[in-house]
């Protein structure tokens, strides 16, 4: 059991732990949910968890590059969500289904 001091002194470790937990939730969503859109949300969750650790590190080291990185990650994530949802919509229009299993029809 960590000491009271460690528990109360909220620091990098705590943020990283939180980030890890949220990341794992995102990962479970990606791995286990059937709905494509929820999977995409899982990806967003993972990216956000990583962002949190970036910001925590930036605060820890006093280096603003972490912020820039988060900025870029957000941009990429937004672009990814845009394309992912556009694909999901296109597939929904075809199969009326967003279950990931239906994406197997896209083979070959």
């Amino acid at each position, binding site marked *: 059991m960590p000491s009271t001091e460690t528990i109360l002194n909220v620091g990098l470790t705590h943020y990283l732990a939180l980030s890890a937990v949220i990341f794992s939730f995102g990962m479970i969503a990606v791995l286990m949910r059937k709905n494509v859109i929820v999977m995409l949300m899982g990806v967003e969750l993972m990216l956000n968890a990583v962002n949190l650790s970036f910001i925590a590190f930036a605060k820890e080291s006093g280096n603003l590059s972490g912020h820039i990185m988060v900025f870029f990650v*957000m*941009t990429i994530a*937004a*672009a990814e*969500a*845009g394309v992912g*949802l*556009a694909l999901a*919509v296109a597939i929904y*229009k075809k199969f009326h289904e967003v279950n990931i299993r239906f994406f197997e029809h896209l083979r070959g």
Partner: protein
Amino acid sequence: MSQLLPVLLLSLFVILFGSALLFLASRIGAKGKPNSVKEETYECGIPAETSGPTKIPIKFYLTAILFILFDIEIIFMYPWALTYGDFISGGYGIYIFSAMAFFIAVFIFGLFWEVKSKALEWE
């Protein structure tokens, strides 16, 4: 933490106020008997055939997706606008201007393309 406290407080007020009103209204308000006709989805008096919309114009997603992309480009201009004066007084005015000029050129190109491809056209 203390900095965010007012924000939380205010949100809490709003939520409490809203819930209280809803609760009050449900207590004070007239009591009607629920019946199937009343609970029918409103459709100007005729029986509703479907509840939600069935055919959705693709335009809405497209608008939303394009909004995200352009929104980010605009967000990128905020720090630029903020530091523009500093760059100019530091003697890097032309640098910072051309840095953003390229970005805006890409932006304009994108906008132009979207207009030209009729992606932004509504009926």
